[in-house]
């Protein structure tokens, strides 16, 4: 409907996150990968610390460690040095060079540099690509999808030389958006394969950031989709993108290889899950597996149980665009009033929403969401929620105040049920707290 922006010069309690962090996240979902941030060392240290805190996993990332003089004279010398070291010491299968605001403002041309580097070193077998991600545009979500797109592009170019393509109609490429947890990706993979398809998720954080216990330390990513599966994914008969931000990489595959694609803007809540399962049922010709029929009933039953709890309640949500879209749809189904919806930046999907959306920060959530009962945002929102007296429900990135947040499911019937129960419980606890304090005050 409308996208607004509150008028204030500074960002106060930002939800926006540097795009390069999205790139690092995307690469964590690829096996034996190394994201290499072309910038000063803080630009890799902060994302590393933040991702570690959220996923409670070691995070693979390196930096070209630019210092002031390097930026002024020859930033690419550092990049070359970093590439030499990373390639000779760790031999990654995939290396993603991620530009930062600094290299962009300084006008460093690392795209051309990487091309000639690859030519000179005769780099074969692996996948090396670069992606330009200035901070003043987008956020985590756009950094993530742009990286997947750049990676797909490089894959297509590599395979381009290898002649014709045989299409495997029983194989689906899944492009999961940045707002999905490892458990979400796992659930989606399961749902699609329950209809008899082979699924290749690109990237696949469900096998890298979900808490495995592989021993033998490596500074590269452990788990994630291997390069050969990624190459194989080019043979898929269909691409399924979850999250509108993943449409671009899907379209890239379509334009280059003719792979048809289907975008699900979200997969959260009854309607969205219905749509996904109905679609899978139709294209596979298989019946919907019994367990999903069961789960659908379970969800409806729990929604009936919970609707007393949600009646008359209102919520404020501050999330990345795709996530906000999904969460808003889910709140709609619960009959919760949506007091304020805040997005980190503007995308076509938030533009097209039926409700009013604000592009802003957590301070806007606090001002516009005043009086809301439930607050949904990343962990930075805890104190804002406390100030307006709303129950705080952690979601998005980063979440550090809840164990196992990265394993919570939001997609499918199971996810909707988990979220509804969680939100309902938080509201119940808040109510009990209120009752307590009113007794004490007498």
């Amino acid at each position: 409907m409308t996208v607004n922006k509150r008028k204030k010069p500074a960002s106060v309690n930002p939800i926006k996150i540097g795009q390069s962090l999205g790139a690092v996240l995307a690469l964590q979902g690829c096996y034996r990968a190394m994201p290499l941030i072309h910038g000063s060392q803080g630009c890799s240290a902060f994302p590393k610390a933040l991702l570690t805190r959220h996923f409670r996993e070691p995070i693979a990332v390196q930096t070209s460690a630019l210092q002031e003089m390097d930026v002024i004279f020859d930033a690419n010398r550092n990049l070359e040095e970093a590439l030499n070291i990373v390639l000779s010491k760790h031999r990654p299968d995939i290396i993603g060079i991620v530009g930062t605001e600094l290299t962009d403002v300084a006008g460093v041309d690392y795209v051309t540099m990487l091309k000639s580097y690859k030519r000179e070193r005769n780099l074969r077998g692996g996948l090396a690509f670069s992606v330009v991600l200035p901070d003043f545009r987008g956020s985590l979500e756009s950094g993530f999808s742009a990286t997947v797109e750049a990676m797909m592009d490089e894959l297509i170019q590599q395979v381009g030389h290898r002649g014709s393509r045989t299409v495997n109609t029983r194989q689906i490429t899944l492009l999961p958006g940045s707002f999905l947890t490892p458990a979400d990706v796992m659930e989606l993979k399961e749902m699609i394969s329950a209809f008899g398809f082979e699924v290749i998720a690109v990237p696949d954080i469900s096998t890298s950031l979900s808490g495995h216990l592989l021993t033998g330390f490596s500074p590269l990513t452990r788990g994630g989709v291997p390069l050969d599966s990624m190459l194989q994914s080019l043979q898929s008969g269909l691409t399924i993108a979850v999250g509108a931000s993943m449409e671009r990489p899907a379209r890239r595959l379509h334009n280059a290889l003719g792979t048809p694609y289907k975008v699900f803007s979200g997969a959260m809540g009854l309607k969205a899950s219905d749509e996904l399962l109905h679609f899978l049922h139709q294209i596979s010709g298989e019946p919907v597996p019994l367990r999903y029929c069961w789960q659908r009933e379970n969800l409806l039953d729990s929604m009936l149980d919970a609707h007393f709890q949600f009646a008359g309640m209102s919520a404020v949500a501050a999330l990345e665009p795709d996530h906000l879209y999904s969460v808003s749809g889910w709140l709609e189904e619960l009959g919760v009033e949506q007091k304020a919806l805040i997005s980190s930046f503007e995308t076509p999907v938030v533009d097209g929403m039926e409700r009013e959306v604000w592009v802003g920060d957590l301070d806007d959530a606090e001002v516009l969401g005043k009086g809301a009962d439930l607050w949904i945002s990343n962990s930075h929102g805890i104190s804002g929620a406390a100030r307006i007296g709303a129950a705080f429900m952690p979601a998005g990135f980063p979440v550090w105040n809840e164990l196992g947040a990265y394993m919570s499911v939001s997609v499918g019937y199971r996810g909707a049920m988990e979220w509804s129960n969680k939100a309902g419980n938080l509201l119940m606890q808040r109510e009990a707290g209120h009752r307590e304090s009113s007794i004490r005050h007498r």
Partner: protein
Amino acid sequence: MDPVRKVDFDSEACGSQAPKSKPCPRPKPGEAAGGCSFDGAQITLLPIMDAAHLVHGPIACAGNSWESRGTLSSGPSLSQYGFATDLNDSDIIFGGEKKLKESIDYIAGRFAPPAIFVYSTCVTALIGEDMDAVCKEAGDRLGIPVVPVNSPGFVGSKNLGNRLAGDALLQYVIGTGDPEPEIPLGVNLIGEYNIAGEMWDIEKLMNSAGISVTSRITGDARYKEITWAHHAKVNMVVCSRALLGLAREMEAKYGIPFFEGSFYGAKETTYSLRQMAYLMNDREMERRVDRLTEREESRLAQDLRPYRKMLKGKKAVLYTGGVKSWSVISALKELGVQVVGVGTNKSTEDDVRRIADRVGDDTEYIPEGGASRILKTVRERKADIMIAGGRNMYVAMKEQIPFIDINQERHKAYAGYEGLLRLAKELTYSLANPVWRLAASPAPWDKGVPYDR
């Protein structure tokens, strides 16, 4: 274009005691770890709790870093707000000074903080923003101090950033105010950031010996108490070599004697308290300190007994990024834990000497970061536990090595006598946790033993 800082400046980044001939090594591309100077500056100044901290630059620097420290406040929380000018491309092309000015005005108008710290970042430094001028103009106009912190990430390491923040305090804050008459003058604590509330334990201890804290630089500080820091009688530099320059400068300028000390371990704590009383030149106070430390030490010895038994002969690998190494070694030694490997990544020669004084000859020095290097030491030296920063925590978990977090993000306070007891307990709980045994044993069906009905 002029560099923001002269290159030779960097040679002192590791602490002023480092000889000029051996500059801080340049971070190695492809192998670098750790934060930038902007990060370091924030670590030093964010614990000034009632001030607003505005990051001047594109969103990533602030968006990825706010609320990442475990520094606690006993009251105001404005410093926990994330403020950013969040520059967009046209700001960068046409200059962000206007937006900076408007942001300062906005924050001053809405939050009425006693002061605003403004941090430059790589991009604003690169495009040559005149932050000092904007801050000065705004400060004069608004009637509150607006302090520029010129510590963009690309000038160097986190340590250098600590120093540059110290310089900003010296230049703009210390010496600009006077304490209220009823405030007793005593000691400034420099480089203590109240991680997990450690400052509070220390202050309690000092108070019971009758020593008062004049300024906290900067754990749980209020802005105005730093303005009168020059009235203190003694400066204590708490385990942060990067701020040694600040203490030195205050000695030269205001004649305040300083010493370096630590509160990790009973011995170090006692030494620090004694040193304070000694430098205050107060015999009565010295006697009080002696009585207090004796009492505390003997009580601690009692309390520690069961844990000492558990910890005796256990081996630890310590990797804290260098600065704290020697003081934590003392604490561990008192518990009977042997340090078999220690990080000297950012330590100066002076630090290394202190480390050498405290460990045995067969302790391995780990000069360079990298999780694999630390793990190798743990393996080779058959260490029982790894003590390091949060970044390496999950590396240890994957390898099923007991771990204690010692850095910025931790949640446990280890300073003072109470702190040592807490450390002993943490170490014991960690080592004795059943999870190590469970994680190490295979699933029943992998054991090859038939099911026993």
